[in-house]
């Protein structure tokens, strides 16, 4: 187990090294220097700026500099916002994204699992069709369209929720729903098909034959076993939520990290782009590792450390 975790961490480090390298050179390839703007800087000033930010060093020196700084979790200064480091920006904006993301993950899991179970229990009946219609719509309607519709109907017309910004729980409801919709639909479909599998298995028949109540059969014996594929979907779920946040935070004007990333892309603020990319990658790789470890705990049939010979 410990050996497996170390091996996985080793892979994460290798992946991160590639990500840092690729983003570094991609950003150097990008057209236009960081200070190229509509207003032409006097050459002297541009020279001085380049000197301060170390842009006059040969590229390999810059690269090694950047690598060592990233290893110390220091992403350097922002080019666009003078006096702010990338770490400041991440530290300031990430809490918003974290709250919104956790809310969306919770919503997607709770409602998705519920819909899936309802669909499986009422297989080929009204409940099943309703749940699957919701699921197909959730997959087909892109999050940014759903967000706009929600904003229009609930904030503008009915005025039930605030239209934008992120100050209270009420502010987080609409973006949370918009962010959760797509993964929710995926989870509902996953849960439905795995629940149907489980409900046809022998131990459910045994439980029924013993005379257990329907409730105990479904909760104790059914859902516990059927939820495993959903757990393995948690990794991709984090990815969906994270990339979804780029657009949802923009639409709802939430000062989160996703919004900051999009902003930095349009501003061509290269250090912020690189820093947030590395940060997102660390977040994802670590959360996928955690999901894999959790998975092995809840399903004793899964062995992380493979024995010699078996696949």
């Amino acid at each position: 187990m410990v050996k497996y975790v170390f091996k996985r961490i080793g892979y994460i480090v290798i992946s991160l090294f590639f990500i840092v390298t690729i983003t570094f050179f991609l950003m150097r390839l990008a057209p236009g220097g960081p200070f190229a703007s509509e207003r032409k800087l006097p050459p002297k000033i541009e020279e001085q700026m380049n000197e301060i930010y170390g842009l006059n060093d040969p590229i390999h020196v810059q690269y090694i500099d950047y690598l060592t700084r990233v290893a110390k979790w220091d992403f350097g200064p922002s080019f666009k916002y003078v006096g702010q480091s990338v770490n400041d920006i991440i530290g300031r904006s990430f809490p918003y994204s974290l709250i919104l993301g956790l809310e969306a993950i919770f919503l997607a899991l709770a409602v998705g699992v519920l819909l899936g179970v309802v669909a499986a229990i009422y297989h080929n009946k009204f409940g099943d069709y309703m749940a699957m219609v919701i699921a197909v719509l959730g997959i087909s309607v892109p999050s940014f369209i759903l967000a706009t519709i929600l904003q229009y109907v609930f904030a503008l017309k009915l005025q039930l929720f605030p239209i934008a910004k992120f100050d209270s729980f009420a502010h987080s409801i609409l973006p949370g729903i918009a962010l959760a919709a797509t993964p929710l639909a995926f989870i509902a479909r996953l849960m439905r098909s795995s629940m149907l599998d489980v409900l046809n298995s022998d131990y459910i028949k045994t439980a029924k034959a013993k005379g257990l109540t329907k409730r105990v059969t479904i909760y104790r014996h059914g859902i516990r076993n059927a939820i495993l594929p959903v757990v393995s979907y948690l990794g991709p779920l984090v990815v969906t939520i994270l990339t979804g946040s780029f657009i949802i935070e923009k639409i709802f004007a939430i000062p989160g990290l996703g919004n900051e990333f999009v902003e930095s892309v349009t501003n061509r603020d290269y250090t912020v782009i690189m820093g947030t990319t590395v940060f997102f990658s660390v977040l994802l790789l670590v959360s996928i590792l955690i999901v894999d470890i959790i998975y092995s705990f809840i399903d004793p049939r899964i062995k992380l450390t493979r024995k010699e010979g078996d696949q």
Partner: protein
Amino acid sequence: MSQLPLKETDFEPIEMKQFDAERIVGESTSYWKDAWRRFKQNKLAVAGTFIILLLGIMAFIGAPISGHNYYDNDLINANQSPSAEYWFGTDNLGRDIFARTWYGAKISLFIGLTAAFIDIVIGIIWGSISGYLSGRVDEYMMRIADILAGIPYLLVVILLMVIMRPGLWTLIIAMTITGWINMARIVRGEVMRLKSEEYVIAARSLGAGSLRIIAKHLIPNTFGPILVTLTLTVPTAIFTEAFLSFLGLGVPAPLASWGTMSSDALQSFRYYPFQLFFPAFFICLTMLAFNVVGDGMRDALDPKSRR
């Protein structure tokens, strides 16, 4: 007690032709015929196919029949509501939304189909080699794919869009750089499963080379899962295009895609909601149609997974 009179002829043997008894009445069926029959029974999937065909046709004839083109500005008639003259209304520069919608359909479908096709080509080559050779080569090839897949798809696409000049092909290249991995994994899995089948052993014992076995025996037998993945890749590509265009990283003006149209319409959404409605509706409809068809195909091609 009456008895039936028996005649001599009653004891003659009945002529029974062996041929008739063994005659096969049913039409002979193949895997694909069977799948097609199952697919036809799925009404939703058939409806989805018709929607896709209709969208494809309209993408070509939609703009001409409206009597307008997608790029002409006409500021006097800006922000018109749908009318007999402008069927879907006009946008903030007076461009006809009907013409733009169908031009956008062309762009969106082109991006979706091309990206999916390139994914397939790379995925088949990578996956079949990796799955067929197995061992060390497979280990390395899959590790490369794992590392690429570790970086979130949209993040890579956005980074690439930053450094490349915005355009249709940039978008397609950016989407295929990590898009093929999924396909490669599926093909690899199928090839690994199939390569120990008896017909592969038979082919090898008859002296067929590795290339021939891969091209003639293994790949044709993975077409089912490939087709399903293809159908489900197209909506992802269309979504990604819309997503990027919405962020301002999509196809440059005056080209119209559903994503750029939605993004433009958002500015004046409070006053002219219809401008957002049409592109948004068609994005949803297309994704819905492809998803439904993909599901239908999966059920048809893999009857075991059906419920």
